[in-house]
């Protein structure tokens, strides 16, 4: 298996176009179990294009979340809240006794309750990840061709059931959830060893940022995850952006990854941006071995659902490796004279390709006139109800959304290429230089990040 994993996360139907166009550039695609349960047939179509490349995140943490995190209404104030349909469909595939508590008592489960049904939980999540999609593929016309060519998709790896370590938990509670995670992992490895097909097993460690800083936390994780029989550990830290979070969190994160490297494990960021991709460089002092990113929304993700927010035009500013609001990106370009001055729009377009982004999508959008850059901001006004009345906002057009998503993914392809080709020091040097030039107000945060990873300024 290729050591570094470039992973895409598939979230919604609008991701499909970008996903299909870039599928060859990524090593695997991750689907959330709830999406798979709800849209099995469409997921089957997508994974059929990705032979042995799909991963299903089993999302077993839904058993321990506050019930409000999995509830929804049909959008009207008078509607009664109910468990989201996608979650409800997934619960049908999980142990009945555990699902019953969520459905009937509408409360999160505790460690003893889950532990009492751990064998069934492990078996059901394993079965879901390895067989659920195949059931849908068998109903498709194209199944016979897949069978004939021996190209039936199967999971790239199977993730053991996992539970989140919350900042609100006591140290003892964290230890008991870690123990539960460890048992789930052990039993999944056992189950895998008895199966006829062989899927690599992965663990997943999900936590609040504050847990990173608990005394001896990295050591406890090391102890929990030191067993053999698997290599990869997905790490998901609630809304963690290492280029923006406190330096204590960055340091604690680096310590955690170092410990996992020390026991021969290969951490993968379940949601990450360039600050994670750069740590996949072979010379990085602490190593990640893969990063997953969404097509349509941010590289960082809160664990429990939060308000979706209003859709806005965004643009990935490659030199800063950040997805910015379109207006902020345009303001930076404008300050560097891209839209004004004596140079022709064609010359400015050439400057853009030389210094900002040379991706296929930018060539498609901009051609030889820099003013076409504003097509990334194509939008239409719509009404938003606020406490001050109705206001107008701009909503990206579908074409602008797809265009921005494609540009984002082409940028990711470029980032992966440079991380595989360049040395760590050169990458960090380039990063610093770009922040100094285009976003000097954030340079001090980048410098702090650099310091944690041992980079010294000249």
């Amino acid at each position, binding site marked *: 298996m290729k050591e570094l994993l470039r992973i895409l996360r598939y979230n919604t139907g609008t991701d499909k176009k970008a996903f299909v166009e870039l599928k060859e550039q990524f090593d695997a695609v991750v689907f959330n179990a709830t999406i798979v349960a709800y849209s099995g047939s469409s997921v089957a179509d997508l994974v059929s294009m990705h032979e042995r490349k799909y991963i299903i995140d089993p999302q077993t943490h839904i058993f321990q979340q506050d019930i409000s995190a999995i509830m929804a209404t049909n959008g009207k104030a008078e509607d009664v809240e109910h468990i989201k349909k996608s979650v409800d469909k997934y619960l049908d595939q999980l142990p009945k006794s555990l699902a019953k508590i969520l459905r009937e008592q509408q409360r999160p489960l505790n460690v003893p309750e889950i532990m009492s049904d751990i064998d069934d939980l492990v078996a059901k999540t394993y079965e879901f990840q390895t067989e659920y999609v195949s059931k849908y593929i068998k109903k498709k016309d194209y199944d016979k061709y897949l069978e004939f060519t021996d190209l039936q998709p199967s999971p790239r790896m199977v993730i053991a059931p996992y539970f989140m370590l919350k900042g609100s938990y006591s140290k003892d509670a964290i230890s008991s959830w870690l123990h539960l995670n460890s048992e789930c992992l052990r039993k999944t490895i056992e189950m895998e060893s008895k199966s006829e097909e062989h899927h690599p097993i992965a663990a997943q460690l999900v936590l609040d940022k504050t847990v990173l800083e608990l005394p001896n936390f990295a050591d406890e994780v090391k102890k929990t995850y030191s067993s053999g029989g698997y290599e990869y550990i997905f790490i998901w830290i609630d809304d963690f952006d290492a280029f923006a979070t406190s330096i204590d969190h960055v340091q604690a994160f680096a310590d955690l990854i170092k410990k996992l490297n020390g026991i021969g494990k290969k951490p993968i960021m379940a949601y990450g941006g360039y600050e994670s991709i750069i740590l996949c460089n072979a010379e990085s002092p602490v190593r990640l071995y893969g990063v997953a990113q969404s097509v349509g929304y941010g590289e960082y993700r809160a664990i429990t659902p939060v308000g979706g927010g209003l859709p*806005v035009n965004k643009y990935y500013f490659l030199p800063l490796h950040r997805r910015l*609001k*379109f*207006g902020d990106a345009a*303001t930076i370009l404008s*300050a560097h004279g891209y839209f*004004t001055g004596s140079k022709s729009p064609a010359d400015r377009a050439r400057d853009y390709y030389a210094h900002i982004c040379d991706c296929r999508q930018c060539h498609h959008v901009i051609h030889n006139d820099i003013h076409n850059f504003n097509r990334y*901001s194509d939008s239409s006004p719509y009404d938003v109800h606020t406490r001050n009345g109705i*206001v107008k906002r701009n909503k990206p057009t579908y074409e602008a959304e797809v265009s921005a998503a494609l540009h984002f993914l082409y940028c990711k392809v470029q980032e992966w290429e440079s991380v595989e080709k360049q040395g760590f020091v050169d990458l960090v040097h380039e990063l610093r230089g770009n922040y100094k030039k285009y976003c000097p107000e954030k340079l001090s945060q980048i410098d702090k990040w650099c310091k944690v990873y041992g980079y010294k300024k000249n």
Partner: protein
Amino acid sequence: MAKDSISETELRKRFVDIYKNSGKVKLYLEVPVFSRSVDLVVQDADDLSMMAVEFKIHDWRRAILQAQSVAICFDYLGVCLPQPKTERGYRSIVDACKVSRICLYFYDAQSKTFGKVLDSPRTANVWDAQKKRVIKYLEGEAHEGTTPDSEVQYWNRQESVR
């Protein structure tokens, strides 16, 4: 900044009530620009130059940031705030607006009047392509009325105020 009992919406309404009759300008409320909605756009009826004005009661720094965030679409930027009660507060705001090249209006709650404290120079680096988009929006959709305030809605439907 001194607290004022009026809301931002009320502050803007009072501003509009006074300035709608003050010259050859068109005023537009809640104009969508990028990912935001600009509180008020003041457009010169002769040369069509535009100023984006943000209103804030409490957080004047945020008002400046909001105005700056749309700078490449407007010829001028402005903020309108309640007049601070202390000289120190007054100075901080004036200095910040000078540095940011932003026009500053203060509202005096006692006399219920507005005063222009700072004029702004023309914005540098305006991107014509985006400015034209704003103008196109103003020519098209802005006259439907974008606030529940009936008086402003009525007024907003008047295409120009002289």
